[in-house]
Structure formats: structure tokens, C-alpha cells
């Protein structure tokens, strides 16, 4: 069940990241941003990493999460602890990266992007679920 929830959250996150990525590509025009200043954040130098928009890396992350989580729901991987471990490692990295981005928004850019916050919360929830999943699948049990 937890893996299913993680998969569903990954899909939601994928659309959030795609929204920001399409904005960077110039497909969407202005961002819908009722709280904070999404444009200031997304046009800052911190919105690019290794030559690609951060949102692009977000899309890659959520696609990977979705793939692993969906695989984990298949019968043959149901009891596979490696799936839980992979999810925990991936979301752990995601939490650290989201934390870094949130720090940049608050302390460096001095603007907050609501969609980035949504993504950070989704990653945090997935991390909590992944840890719970890993704990439940621990060999001692």
C-alpha cells in the first residue's frame, strides 16, 4: 500500500515538475503563483543545474521514483527489500536537495516559490513513507 501511495505522489510531483519545466521552456507564459514569487525563483541562477533547469532534474527524479514505486507494487517484487531501500535512498537524496533549494529560496534569493514548496512537501512525505516501508521490511521482522 505504501508503495502505491508513493507512486501516486510521484505522479503528482511529476506534473508539478513538468509545469515548472514547461515554464522554463517558454511554453506556459506566466506561472500561476498566488503565494510567493515563483518567477523570481525560477529565473534566478539557482534554477539551473548542470546546464539544465532544476525542474528538468525534478522531472527525472519523479519519473525514476514512479518507476521504482510501480515496480515495487508488482507481485514478484512485493517482498523485495531492495525496492524499499532504493525508495529510501532516492527520497533521502530528494529531501536533502529540496532542503538545499528551500534554504536558497529563503536565505539567498529571498523569494519563495509555492510549487517548489509543494514539491518539497511531496518529497518529504515520500521519504517518511519510504522509511516506514524499509522499517517494515527489515530482516529482523
Amino acid at each position: 500500500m505504501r508503495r502505491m501511495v508513493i507512486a501516486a505522489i510521484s505522479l503528482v510531483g511529476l506534473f508539478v515538475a513538468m509545469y515548472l519545466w514547461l515554464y522554463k521552456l517558454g511554453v506556459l507564459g506566466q506561472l500561476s503563483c498566488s503565494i510567493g514569487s515563483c518567477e523570481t525563483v525560477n529565473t534566478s541562477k539557482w534554477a539551473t543545474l548542470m546546464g539544465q533547469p532544476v525542474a528538468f532534474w525534478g522531472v527525472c527524479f519523479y519519473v525514476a521514483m514512479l518507476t521504482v514505486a510501480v515496480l515495487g507494487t508488482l507481485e514478484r517484487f512485493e517482498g523485495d527489500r531492495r525496492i524499499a531501500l532504493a525508495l529510501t535512498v532516492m527520497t533521502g537524496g530528494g529531501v536533502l536537495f529540496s532542503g538545499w533549494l528551500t534554504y536558497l529560496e529563503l536565505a539567498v534569493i529571498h523569494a519563495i516559490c509555492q510549487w517548489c514548496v509543494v514539491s518539497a512537501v511531496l518529497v518529504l512525505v515520500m521519504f517518511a513513507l519510504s522509511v516506514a516501508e524499509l522499517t517494515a521490511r527489515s530482516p529482523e521482522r
Partner: protein
Amino acid sequence: MSLVASTSPRASQKRFVFVLAAIAVVGVGVLGYVATRPKGGGEAIDPNLPVGTAQGFLMGSPDAPVKIVEFADFECPGCGQFATVTEPDVRERLIKTGLVSLQFFVFPLPMHQNTWAASNAAYCSNEQGKFWEMHDRLFYTQDLWNTQATSSPDKKMMGYAKDIGLDEGKFEECYASKKHYPNIKASGAEAERVGIQQTPTLIIGGKKYVDQLSYDLIKRLVDEEIAKAGKSDTSKKGAK
């Protein structure tokens, strides 16, 4: 959990697929809608537009010891902040004192729907020697003509032309002809050529600065450039 435990794995899997499909349908629908909805002032720029001449608009003496090059988008909030908060000090203390010249290049970003209209207005104002007046007008009123504010910025641009004392007939003729679009495109191409990735970007002493530089930091960089060139310190010229 108990709900899942009480249902068969197959039923649970079915429900899972249904939930994923529902999220996918909603997500694709929302993205499709926002991508295809009429965008405010969404001006389609011809991809085959010829490339004209990249023109940097100069403020200050061409012989100033330090040259600052700025790449900016008229609709970018960070550029507006720089133009309205920091640049007045730069003009008063560094440009007017002859220490610095500022060369401004337009870099229209694809996510800004009204930036070409604003750039067009600035280029047409330049024909009547009032580029900087329009530059200031655009940045100070950015929230009144940007994509969120209006879908037809043309009227606003005409109003600004009147406000800054342009010959409205000549301005309108120039503006409507879009004859400077190739030059605006060239300016953007120049920004890409020198590796500008966001706006505003300042180039001081050959180095790019993409953070919002404060006046004090710009002053320090200018002093360093002057010192490097073995020229007198800015303080001797009265800059504070």
C-alpha cells in the same frame, strides 16, 4: 491499511491503476489547458525572423575607465528590481562621475509574453534619442504592462511614448512596423553567444555577475577594475 488487508491483491491493484490513471488524466488536462490557453499578449515570434544587429545602448562616456555590460529582459522582475533600486545609485555615483559606462543589451526571455512589445517600444524610443527614458518607464511600471497585467500591451506602450515626450506619430509608425524585431532577436542571440543564462546579468571587468548586486558591491568591483588598470581610485573622483 486494514482496508487493503481486507481486499484482494487484484482489487487493490485495480484501484491503484485507477488512481494513477485519474491523476494522469487530471495532470495532462491541467497542463494541456495552461499550455494552450490564450496567453496575455502572447505574441508569436516568427522563428524565421532574420537576425539583425545586436545593439547595446550606452549610458555614460565611451571613454569611461570601467565598462559595465548589462543583459536584461524588460519583463523580468529581477531586472526591474535592479533598474529601480540599484541602478539609480550607479548612475548618480559612477556613471555621472565618469568612472563607468553602462551598455544595455535586451535579452527577451521566452516565458515573457510582453517583453518583445516592451523591447520594441524601447528600440523605437531610441530612434528619437529617448531609449533610457523608455527603459526607466518600462521598468518602473513593469507590473502595469507585464503578462499578468494585460493581454494587449500596445496601448500602454503608446501611453508611455506620450508620457516621455516622443513624437507619437513616428513612434507608432516604428512600433507597428516591428522593424526592430530582427535587432531584438540579434541582441538575444548576442546574449546567448556570450553565455548569458538568466537576467539580469552584469559583466564587469570581463566577469559575469548574476546575483542581485548591491551598489556597494558594484562600487567595490569598479574600484578593483580601476586599481587593476593602475588608474586613480574612485574616491579621488568624488564617488562615495
